[in-house]
């Protein structure tokens, strides 16, 4: 039964060509990965340890480095990781703005605290999805 379904799938893809392959690629989720799971917790920890009373720049750099490691590792692993890359991308943008601002002039404590709250929410969602994979 399963063999027949697989055969039917392969025939359908062969007939409809590359467009179908790309559609199927979009349906296939990435699977559990020890390194990604550990790194997304490193991201959460670096956000949890962010102290808005101290200098922001070096602390944000640590979050950014963890996210960059995650991105480069996932990119190197191949197309099936595109779903987790899409999850992490908005967080990279949030951190990039924070880093850019801290480079020129440190933002206010209230700005940092709200930013930390937003990043905490984002990293919770991301970790839940990444660690919840099959």
């Amino acid at each position: 039964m399963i063999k027949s379904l697989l055969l039917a799938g392969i025939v359908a893809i062969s007939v409809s060509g590359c467009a179908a392959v790309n559609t199927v690629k979009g349906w296939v989720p990435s699977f559990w990965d020890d390194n990604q799971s550990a790194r997304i917790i490193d991201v959460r920890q670096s956000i949890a340890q962010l102290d808005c009373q101290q200098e922001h720049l070096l602390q944000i750099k640590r979050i950014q480095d963890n996210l960059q490691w995650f991105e480069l590792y996932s990119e190197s692993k191949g197309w099936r990781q595109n779903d987790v890359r899409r999850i992490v991308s908005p967080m990279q943008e949030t951190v990039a703005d924070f880093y850019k601002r801290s480079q020129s002039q440190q933002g206010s404590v209230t700005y940092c605290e709200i930013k930390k709250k937003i990043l905490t929410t984002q990293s919770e969602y991301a970790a839940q999805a990444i660690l919840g994979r099959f």
Partner: protein
Amino acid sequence: MTQELQWLAACGRPWAEQRAQTALSLSDARSRGDISDSEYQELLYDLVRTDRLESEADDLQTKTMLVNAISVLSHLA
């Protein structure tokens, strides 16, 4: 706009309430002068980014559930 946000902050839908409360607290912080205009703009963008992230995360969780269900079914067959 503030009235709409206040209504959303108590509309009974947790996801909308949370976002509206955050937007209201941003607006308050700007009014008090605790954050600058550019910080306010950036933080509003971050709220939109959070929505994008949540949507992608939901998508992955749904696909994972589907794969899990298919795997269980294939073991039963």
